[in-house]
């Protein structure tokens, strides 16, 4: 019986204990936070504690700075469960609110910790809703225009709040967002987008210095390819225009010889027959001397009939050559790869020639072997003998060398180098290596610095008539600086041609 009583008592105790566990005062609620979407109203939420098994009511009380008394929440409904909504009349900015939530049931109360807040600090706008994307194509490249509406409940017209926006864009598949700031505009344009890619865009906003809203829902768009229609057209155009070009190229290639003839007429060059160009290239000066001296028999000169090429022929005449104290080895013309063809000498009459010239020309019908003729070749050297008028004695004859740069037609271009100092004005003697009498070359043209264009002197080849320069009136040439040619060395002036044998000057 004792045991039965004990058991009953235990059971009673247990049931009492069980019953008492399910009923208790409520647990302490926790205030989660508050938020104002437009700086005019605000809402607060709390988390209730355990309810103790009994129906529990929660009440929110607040005190306010500069306001006496404790007040209760004006609206428990509008913002949902466990919330309190403060409308405009009950909202004051820039004042502190002290909020507490009290949970109460039949057995007791529980109060949360006080929560202090100022509406100024809890401003966070609602997420933006209506974000639209528009793809526009301009000049062949697509642009993405993003457009959205400002949050509906904010008052920007009165200047109460200023809304600033931010958006972020992501390409499909990627997980990296690119963020852009839009300021206060409600639209934004993206220019560097690729066709065929899906873009996801989100926008958010904030009021003044408040918190940023949540990101809007994602809006996606796929950029279409734009150039499909135009590409085949341009392809056709390019193919069609390429065909005539190709045919023109083929024609040019097949008829290249003709074209070459037409575009680039052949340049006459002197030729020395029986001279081995290779020998000249490789050999020393002695070998070259020998090579040129070997050939003693020159065919007679015939009057030129054929107008194919012009030549100036030079050779060395050993027979009549006195032992030249001034051995002009240096003056030996060492052209590179030249070929002398003595048969094609001609004499050209120029209208500007004076009588003497013509005379010489006619005398060329009987060309003698001993005559020395001078080919002027590109790369050949001509002595430029400077005749000093006043400064030094007549026997002083510094000889300088200028290199013949180019023989072109009936003109000889002489490029004067530094080694021809022209200190004073006088005559410029062009000394031709050879054995012909002194002759003058008529200066045809003086170029800027160094080029003296001489008229060819084919007609002056004549050993028989050793005519001096008295036929030729040369003008006094004004020489300026040593590196410049005399400025008055102009057309129709004359330059002496001095030969090594005749050491006059």
């Amino acid at each position, binding site marked *: 019986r004792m045991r039965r009583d004990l058991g009953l008592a235990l059971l009673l105790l247990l049931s009492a204990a069980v019953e008492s566990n399910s009923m208790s005062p409520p647990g302490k609620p926790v205030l989660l936070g508050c938020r104002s979407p437009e700086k005019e109203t605000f809402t607060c939420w709390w988390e209730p504690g355990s309810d103790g098994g009994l129906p529990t009511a929660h009440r929110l009380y607040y*005190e306010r700075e500069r306001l006496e008394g404790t007040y209760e929440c004006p609206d428990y409904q509008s913002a949902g469960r466990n919330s309190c909504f403060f409308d405009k009349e009950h909202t004051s900015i820039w004042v502190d609110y002290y909020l507490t939530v009290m949970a109460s049931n039949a057995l007791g109360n529980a109060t949360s910790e006080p929560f202090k807040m100022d509406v100024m600090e809890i401003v966070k706008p609602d997420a933006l809703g209506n974000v639209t994307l528009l793809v526009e194509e301009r000049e062949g490249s697509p642009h993405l225009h993003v457009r959205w509406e400002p949050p509906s409940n904010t008052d920007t*017209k009165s*200047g*109460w709040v200023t809304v600033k926006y931010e958006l972020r864009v992501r390409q499909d598949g990627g997980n990296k967002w690119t963020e852009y700031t839009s300021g206060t505009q409600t639209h934004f344009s993206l220019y560097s987008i690729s066709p065929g890619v899906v873009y996801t865009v989100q926008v958010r906003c904030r009021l003044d210095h408040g918190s940023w809203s949540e990101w809007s829902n994602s809006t996606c768009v796929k950029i279409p390819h734009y150039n499909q229609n135009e590409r085949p057209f341009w392809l056709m155009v390019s193919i069609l225009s390429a065909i005539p070009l190709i045919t023109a190229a083929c024609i040019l290639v097949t008829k290249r010889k003709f074209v070459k003839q037409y575009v680039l007429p052949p340049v006459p060059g002197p030729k020395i027959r029986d001279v081995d160009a290779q020998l000249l290239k490789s050999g020393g000066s002695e070998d070259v001397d020998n090579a040129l001296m070997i050939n003693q028999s020159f065919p007679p000169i015939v009057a030129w009939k054929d107008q194919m090429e012009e030549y100036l022929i030079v050779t060395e005449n050993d027979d009549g050559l006195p032992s030249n104290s001034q051995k002009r080895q240096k003056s030996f013309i060492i052209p590179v790869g030249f070929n002398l063809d003595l048969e094609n000498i001609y004499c050209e009459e120029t209208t500007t020639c004076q009588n003497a010239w013509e005379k010489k020309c006619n005398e060329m019908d009987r060309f003698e072997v001993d005559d020395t003729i001078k080919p002027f070749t590109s790369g050949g050297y001509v002595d430029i003998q400077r005749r000093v008028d006043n400064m030094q004695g007549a026997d002083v004859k510094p000889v300088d060398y200028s290199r013949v740069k180019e023989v072109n037609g009936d003109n000889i271009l002489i490029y004067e180098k530094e080694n021809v100092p022209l200190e004073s004005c006088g005559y410029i003697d062009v000394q031709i290596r050879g054995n012909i009498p002194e002759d003058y070359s008529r200066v045809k043209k003086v170029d800027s610095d160094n080029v003296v264009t001489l008229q060819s002197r084919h007609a002056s080849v004549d050993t028989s008539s050793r005519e001096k320069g008295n036929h030729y009136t040369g003008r006094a040439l004004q020489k300026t600086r040593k590196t410049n040619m005399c400025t008055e060395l102009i057309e129709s002036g004359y330059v002496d041609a001095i030969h090594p044998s005749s050491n006059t000057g």
Partner: protein
Amino acid sequence: MPGNIRSVSFAWMVLVYLLFCSRRASVGAAPICANAQAGCHVLSLANLFDRVIQHSARTHSISNDLHSEFEQYFLPSKNHIGRVSRNCHTSSILTPNGKDNAQRMAREELTEVILKLLVAWRDPLWHFHQNMAHHHDFNNFSSNKALEMSDMVHELRKGVEKVAEKMQVLGIISNTVSSLASPEASLPSDSAEWRLMKDYNLLSCFRRDSNKVQNYLKILKCRIVPEHGC
């Protein structure tokens, strides 16, 4: 030769003189011209408003930053603040506490409120900057911000005075606005902790007041010259 030197030196002096003249002219440039005299650089009222609003936004931003920085050093416990109302020295100035109140307020009153607030903060901010300069807890960055804040309030006050002047000239408001005497800031006490708390309190108060000034200016602007950005 001496003639050359003389002419050169004369030309040089003329150049220097011109330079100084232009510099002086530019320094004193852009006064607000009451009667739009010739040669005066006149700024429109909307332009002036935009400038002061930008200024006030920057001021509030700095005060926000400083306040957050202070919270790292001095996090007020709940007991400390509790239910004691904030001890701002500008509490005596009556300010509208909401949008409707601010819109209902007369323009002159609103302008006056703004000016009162700005005048009231000139000295406390200066002292605050001095305190910060002597504390070794805070880095130079904060100290510079405090100085900037103090200067900006000074500039802002001058700007708002100009705006008020222009509005008076244009007849938008009556001539009753004047820089009234502002309530003095309470003197700092000696205790370090009290001073620290005072600084934090001061920053909270100023953060709030700078926000007020910014908002009031924007409301005023959109009421008077609503063309741009309203």
